[in-house]
């Protein structure tokens, strides 16, 4: 999952990014002013945008309005020090999906981010069950045949993304776009390595394939009989 944080307090943005990366395995981009933030939000397929309101150059509500005006459906969580009800109502009415006022609980922010992303992929249940595999997006744990499997961050990220798009064709570009932040050096063959690792770790047995390769197009995660 890839998240954009538009926040002019650099330290705060860094902290949130770190927390989201560590606790939710998100790929996080940071933008510290309105202009740059708006550009990034419109040019990359983010799964969530965390938006401050009082920003240099372009104010947060304006960015939100522009995004919605241009037809971007990306969920937006407003993170603001303004606690006035009018501001919150205005933000929600302009198309934001949720809000949190500063100072906030980091755990709450992470939970809200997860909830927003589940909503986008239409997965209200934080636990996704695929055959013998159970992915708990809240506790970030994966069990296979009743046993917990420890996954490296990137593998978990890939598995979670594919699971959210269960039974759908996911292109390699989409995977790269949603799993890596702006600064990461992403080589497309890395995805193949992760996919092969996941296949090894979750072997559903003969006659069953967990991750199907659609040549030249991408992957499908799902219990599709061969």
């Amino acid at each position, binding site marked *: 999952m890839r998240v954009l944080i538009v926040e002019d307090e650099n330290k705060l943005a860094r902290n949130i990014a770190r927390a989201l990366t560590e606790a939710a395995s998100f790929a996080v981009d940071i933008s510290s002013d309105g202009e740059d933030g708006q550009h990034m939000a419109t040019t990359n397929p983010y799964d969530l945008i965390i938006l401050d309101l009082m920003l240099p150059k372009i104010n947060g509500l304006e960015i939100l309005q522009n995004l919605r005006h241009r037809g971007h459906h990306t969920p937006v969580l407003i993170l603001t020090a303004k606690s006035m009800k009018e501001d919150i109502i205005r933000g929600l009415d302009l198309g934001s999906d949720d809000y949190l006022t*500063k*100072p906030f609980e980091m755990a709450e922010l992470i939970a809200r981010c997860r909830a927003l992303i589940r909503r986008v992929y239409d997965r209200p249940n934080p636990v996704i069950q695929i055959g013998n595999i159970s992915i708990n997006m809240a506790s970030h744990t994966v069990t296979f045949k009743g046993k917990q499997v420890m996954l490296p961050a990137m593998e978990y990220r890939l598995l979670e993304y594919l699971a959210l798009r269960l039974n759908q064709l996911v292109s390699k570009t989409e995977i790269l776009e949603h799993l890596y932040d702006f600064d990461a050096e992403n080589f497309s063959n890395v995805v193949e390595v992760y996919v092969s690792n996941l296949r090894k770790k979750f072997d559903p047995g003969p006659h069953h394939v967990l991750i199907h390769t659609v040549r030249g197009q991408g992957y499908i995660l799902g219990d599709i009989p061969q």
Partner: protein
Amino acid sequence: MKNRPLKWCLSLLICVVLMSTIITLSIVAYVELEEALLRNIDPVLRTMAEEILAKLDEPGSLEPNQSEFPSITGWYTGGRYSNQYRIWMDGSKEKLLASDISDKRYGRLFTDLPEDNRPEISKFTFFNLNRKDYQYRAVWTRIPFRQGIANILVAGSSRYAYHEMEEFLQLLIILGGSLLLGALLLVPLIVAWGMNPIDRVAESIRHITYKNLGQDSLQDMDIPQELLPIVESLSDMLARLDQAIQQQKQFTADASHELRTPLAILKSTIQTTSMTARDVTDYTRALEDTLQDVNRMEQLVEQLLCLARIDEDRGSVKTTRIALDDLLTPLMESFNARAASQGGKVTYNPIPTCIQGNENELTQLFTNILDNAIKYGPLDGTIHVTIENEDNYVTVCVHDEGGAIPPEVLPHLFDRFYRAESSRSRSTGGAGLGLAIAREIVHRHRGKIEITSEPQTGTSVYVRLPRL
């Protein structure tokens, strides 16, 4: 405040005016009627007197038995003549001739005449002769007769006229009384009706609360012209109050924003760091970050408290005689050291000047200005501090070589929480209160503060204070 009900005052006033009008009119009408009634009698009496005069020289005219005078003066009714006459010589109390009337009874009326009414020779005077229940209208004339002067008095009863007048008076009292009574009942009602708009305005004002203060609900009301000044000044006052409240609200919102932001950073740092076990470098970094934010909050709280203090005891500043040099020199030294640490310097030309002021506040004032000069000037720039004495004022100019401040921004620099540009100030910290505090302090010292900025020369802050 003494609360006299205007309604009752007005009612009373109107009633008093009405009463005096009615009474005056009644008196005038009464007097006019009296005169009119009596004047009706006068020509008759005069004719009688003239006839008596004409007959006076005829022989036997003064003989009681032959005299024609009784037939001139009238008829005999109800036991006495309605008109009486009396003829006598000047200087004598004895009558020459008189109607048949006893001197001892009301006949005395005609002997003790008021001297004021004594007429000139051949002239007539008319007057009233009233005693108890006998009322007469009389004419008195004097003519030369034989060796002296004869007096002739003819009197006619004015009983009837007085009776008329009595009836008229009764009518006046009844009419006037009922008019007054009616007025007493109606006037308060009318006055109350007339005062309705006041109640309506009061009702509208009653609905004005803290929340709808700015809506100016008084503007669209149907208000009589007389109330307009009051309502207009009320509207103005409400607008001013609204503005003050909005400013206060804005200030509170800004203050809470400024306090929440470092708090949010602090909390996020602590929570993120404690999410998992970290190494020492991470913890050290988190502690450093935390300390930075705590310092930022501390500074902000200090500034807010300073503003609150200034707002609270506005005008009552404790001042002493201060030598400006003694105050500025140590400041300059410490700021010079700070500037030198980043490659710049502070120059200062001390001129002995004394001002009346509060030492703490003035130190705060120059600290804030110098702080800005160091923050916004180039790192290796020179800050020039100059003092100029005028007749009654001293001007301290702090000049830095910082970039130009856009002209449209200049007027806002002293606004609370105003920051020229976020990128310019966020990195250097500060919540935009330094200059606001500076302005408050300068105003408390009855001085002026100004900022000019030019791209070539830099930015100058002028502080003008009254000198001793």
